[in-house]
């Protein structure tokens, strides 16, 4: 069993998992750096995908995209993904990799993971964790969002890997085949920043994504006053819950991206990036204010109405719009 594995708590499961994995294989990529290089930050309002009857709102790229983009961008990084038709095959493949002393990443449903506090267990199928060992029927797990190491019995882990429904993991596991010894930050960082800017700002072609998606949600909030009050309150609570509770949250991702910009500024010795980092931190703070307003109204406290909340979201959108447009033309001078 791998005993020298170092667990670091992370703000988000996928970036935390890949960062801990790469650092184990001696490639120094912090969580924010993984997030930034994979252009993970975004916004998407997917009306047609319903979670408990309410639309999916995402503050980052879809599951697996971060690891996929990262391995496409970093020269020499090869992460292999496997899915399985049946449980026995999937568990055998995991055991085989562990026997070879390889750290394995898994996609799993939070609902079946026994180490999660009971009340935190929802049917969210796209959680990420690393398995670093096994003792009898107990799997030793480094779950990036926990402060400590955890473990899961074979039966629960099987259920979690083969849960069904939206984003079903189908036993998905991933492991490194090749990890390079260094990364060409001078080339990759500006490229990733421009990509993020273009994807979210003025050049974004998709009306549901980026700033356009945020404005759409703001409009939807304005219209909530005409809807059944109970549904309107649940909708608001849901936005905040998608923002803060499941995964890392809107503000959390902005702070993480700001940490990436800060690290990038130091690596490339670039003041413009340090300024961008501060601006992005402000955007994170604005998201938090939005969450406070929305949660209060959702609980029928305070004097704010739907128009105020929509206006706050508009404010965040306008602020990020300028940021992304600046980023889309970023070059090291």
């Amino acid at each position: 069993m791998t005993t020298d594995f170092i667990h670091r708590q992370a703000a988000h499961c996928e970036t935390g998992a890949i960062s801990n994995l790469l650092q184990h294989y001696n490639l120094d990529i912090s969580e924010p750096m993984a997030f930034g290089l994979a252009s993970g930050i975004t916004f998407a309002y997917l009306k047609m995908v319903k979670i408990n009857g309410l639309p999916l709102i995402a503050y980052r790229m879809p599951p697996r995209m971060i690891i996929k983009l990262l391995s496409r961008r970093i020269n020499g990084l090869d992460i292999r993904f496997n899915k399985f038709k049946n449980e026995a095959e999937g568990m055998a493949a995991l055991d085989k990799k562990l026997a070879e002393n390889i750290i394995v990443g898994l996609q799993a449903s939070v609902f079946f993971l026994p180490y999660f506090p009971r009340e935190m267990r929802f049917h969210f199928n796209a959680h990420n964790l690393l398995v670093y060992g096994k003792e009898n029927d107990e799997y030793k797990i480094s779950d990036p969002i926990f402060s400590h190491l955890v473990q899961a019995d074979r039966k629960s882990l099987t259920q979690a890997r083969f849960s069904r429904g939206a984003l079903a993991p189908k036993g998905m596991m991933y492991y490194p085949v090749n990890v390079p010894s260094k990364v060409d930050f001078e080339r990759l960082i500006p490229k990733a920043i421009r990509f993020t800017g273009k994807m979210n700002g003025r050049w974004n072609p998709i009306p549901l994504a980026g700033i356009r998606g945020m404005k759409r949600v703001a409009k939807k909030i304005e219209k909530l006053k005409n809807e059944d009050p109970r549904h309107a309150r649940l909708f608001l609570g849901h936005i905040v819950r998608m923002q803060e509770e499941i995964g890392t949250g809107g503000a959390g991702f902005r702070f993480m991206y700001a940490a990436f910009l800060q690290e990038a500024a130091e690596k490339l010795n670039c003041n413009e990036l340090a300024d961008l980092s501060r601006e992005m931190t402000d955007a994170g703070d604005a998201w938090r204010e939005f969450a406070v307003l929305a949660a209060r109204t959702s609980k029928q406290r305070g004097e704010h109405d739907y128009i105020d909340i929509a206006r706050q979201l508009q404010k965040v959108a306008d602020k990020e719009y300028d940021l992304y447009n600046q980023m889309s033309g970023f070059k090291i001078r």
Partner: protein
Amino acid sequence: MKKKDIPQQAHHLYAGETKAVYAINEEGKLEIAQTAGWEVEIDVLQQAIDEIDRLSADALQRVRAGESSPLEYHMYAQRMDLPMLAQAVGVFKWRVKKHLKPTGFAKLKPEQLSLYASVLGIDVETLQELPDDN
């Protein structure tokens, strides 16, 4: 957000676990730090749990009154709803709806019962029963 402003409102929902956030330290640099919980998040999580409790309690009454099958109660109690359950078992919603009624539920084959039980994370016996009063 400054590190000293990170909310530290521990709550029993989190069972003592912490989360990580990036925040600005004394030197003006962002770094990773821990939070025990934030009132705003706790409120909306509690709201979601209350809604699930309300749906399961309503379903329980309907099952006791003979209007619904135990499947409806367990669906909500295990934090699902009709579209999620239908997607998880790979069956049209209208068919799952039939199984939420006592007559449709009685006609379920053992394989169907065990599929429902497995996606809900309970065993087949539990699926056919209701929780005790109290």
